């Protein structure tokens, strides 16, 4: 296949992968390239605007959304390693510009081109990853709310893991929120603690040593709580497993 026929992907890094977990971004790019895409990372990107949007600072979020719309103009596909950022762009950008017709049209256009990475790999690229070193280990999966309910992401990461030979031990209430909720976890820490404890207990009840998910917000929350409780649960983004980016410490773990 000539280079020109490769699907051209603009990669949205997401601020949490950029700052906390670059291996997730590198892994996602690696997977997209292995699946046959030509990947570009526009440098003029920062944050999708979700923190402001969700906490009521809509006017602070709108200019950030405009930057994203501009930075990703022209890409036939925009892919992010996060259900909540992709959900923000797909689901909420058009609402954010409901009263600005010109930007609303551009936001709707971007929404139609935007994908979360596991659903893009399965639904567009029908990609089969190589067998993972996690094969044979007990692994559980947390469904992040935005990806699940705004984008219908449920089977896609499971399909990729199955193709990589990873068997999942499903936990109870995997579709229930982990208590992250953006600024919620800092505004209402007691309720957040209860919710993340429930999540952690359900995960540990499966006997799994590894918890995977598709959104770093949830994973930082779960891993942070696991460390506070001295639990040995290894928390990672699903992309790290699929791209075999497992050499470094898991989220919240120190260097060995």
């Amino acid at each position, binding site marked *: 296949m000539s280079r020109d026929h490769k699907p051209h992907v603009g990669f949205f890094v997401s601020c949490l992968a950029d700052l*906390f977990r670059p291996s997730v971004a590198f892994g996602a790019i690696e997977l997209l390239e292995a699946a046959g895409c030509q990947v570009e990372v526009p440098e003029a990107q920062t944050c999708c605007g979700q*923190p402001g949007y969700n906490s009521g*600072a809509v006017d602070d979020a709108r200019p*950030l959304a405009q930057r994203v719309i501009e930075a990703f103009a022209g890409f036939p596909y925009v892919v992010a390693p996060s259900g909540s950022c992709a959900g923000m762009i797909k689901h909420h950008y058009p609402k954010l510009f409901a009263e600005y017709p010109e930007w609303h049209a551009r936001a709707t256009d971007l929404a139609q081109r935007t994908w979360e990475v596991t659903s893009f790999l399965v639904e567009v690229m029908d990609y089969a990853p190589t067998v993972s070193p996690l094969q044979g280990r007990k692994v559980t999966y947390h469904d992040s709310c935005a990806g699940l309910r705004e984008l219908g992401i449920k089977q896609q990461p499971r399909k990729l893991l199955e193709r990589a030979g990873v068997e999942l031990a499903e936990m109870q209430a995997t579709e229930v929120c982990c208590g992250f909720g953006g600024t919620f976890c*800092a505004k209402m*820490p007691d309720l957040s603690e209860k919710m*993340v404890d429930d999540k952690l207990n359900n995960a540990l009840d499966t006997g799994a040593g590894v918890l995977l998910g598709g959104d770093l917000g949830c994973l930082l929350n779960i891993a942070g*709580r696991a460390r506070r409780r001295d639990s040995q649960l290894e928390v990672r983004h699903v992309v790290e497993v699929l791209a075999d980016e497992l050499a470094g410490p898991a989220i919240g773990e120190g260097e060995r």
Partner: protein
Amino acid sequence: MKQTSEHFQDSARAALARTEARERMDILGLFMPAMRDAAVAEVDFEALREHVKRVKDHTLDNLEHYLRQFEEQVVMNGGHVHWARDAAELNATVLDICRAAEARRVGKGKSMITEETGLTEHLEKAGLLVTETDLGEYIVQIAGEPPSHIVGPAFHKSEQEIRELFLDQHKLGRRQLEDPPAMVAEAREVLRERFLSADVGIIGSNALIAETGQTMLVTNEGNGDLVSTLPRVHIVCASIEKLMPRPEDALAQIRLLARSAIGTAVTAYTSFYSGPRRAEDLDGPEQYHVVLLDNRRTEILGSNYQDMLACMRCGACLTHCPVYIGAGGHAYGWVYPGPMGSVLTPLLTGLEEASELPNACTSCGRCEEVCPAGIPLPDLLRDLRADETRAKITPARWRWGMKLHGWLARMPGLYQALTGTAIAVLSRLGRRSGGFRRLPMAGGWTQVRDFPTPQGDSFMRQWKRRNKEAGNG
């Protein structure tokens, strides 16, 4: 009822500390969704929800027309319609009706509207003996507590708590009340006498039917029928958005309501009340009154929040909400808890008094997913948070924090330089430990969890470096 919504977090913290009650709530949070999901699977939920939503939207868009039609029909059936602008007017109207009928005893069916107006307290202050006849409502009434759930008012109470309450409040001598059936039998015995001696019966309504002037009520205990047919005077208290054009619309709504509320296809009793006893009727009330409450609903009509008026009070959003399950119903500090309450309470009582409630949400979307009225609850809660920001109710440090973030993130070069440096420092400091137990300005986060150490240099720094090397090499 005195509103305590501003203490939401303190109340929630106290509720979380009561281990037994918390465990009961956890069971509720697993059991009720399982029941609901199984019941909803029997019908084409999406199609039904879409249908009922269209009916409801149409009714709300033409509310004045249907209210007029409803009033005409009620009058034609021999009843009276009273209009109450607010809680005080409803309470005064009902008291006037009771006084005119020289009533002393009132039997009540479960009604969230009368909870909203504080009717029971108002009538009791005027010297009337008021008895709640729905078992759950009766339990919270004699316990002196508000309901904790809009469908199951006493969901928060344990079997033992109810046993002790009955043994203490019912002066019936020494007895065991060994199991729930024995307790139900005792409540039935006590309530029977109240039904028979009530001069006035007051109920709520699940739907007001414009075409026929009927009011519809669903119950599982049949208490609604007893307080409607035995006393001399029958009063229905309902808010104006309960209106539906035709009986079949109300029945379509029931198919969703019962399944969403308690996980059954229908409730045990579904009643349509048409008016006072007619000449040829053997029994029934002498007077029939419908008191229609506005209480700020006409302000919601036509606003961004109009969708909220489609709420059928099933309570599915409560038991599906992990925040409600953790905090418990009482923490919300007013009549309506959970996601629907977090939207409705600020709209009905004022944003300032209830400013905590729209923030008691992780935007997880489970409420919207199960809402049989298709209300975009997370969007409405987000809009309320935006209203709080505009009205400067949001604490200044959050508002300025978001402004600063928004300002910085608008300039990729500066943003990447500053965050890149901060992340590089943090990743070096926390490399061995893997996380921070404390960090300045992250107190809410680190109160309950470690702050995971960033992996190393930011992605953007590494990416640019890599591109540069590739370019040079």
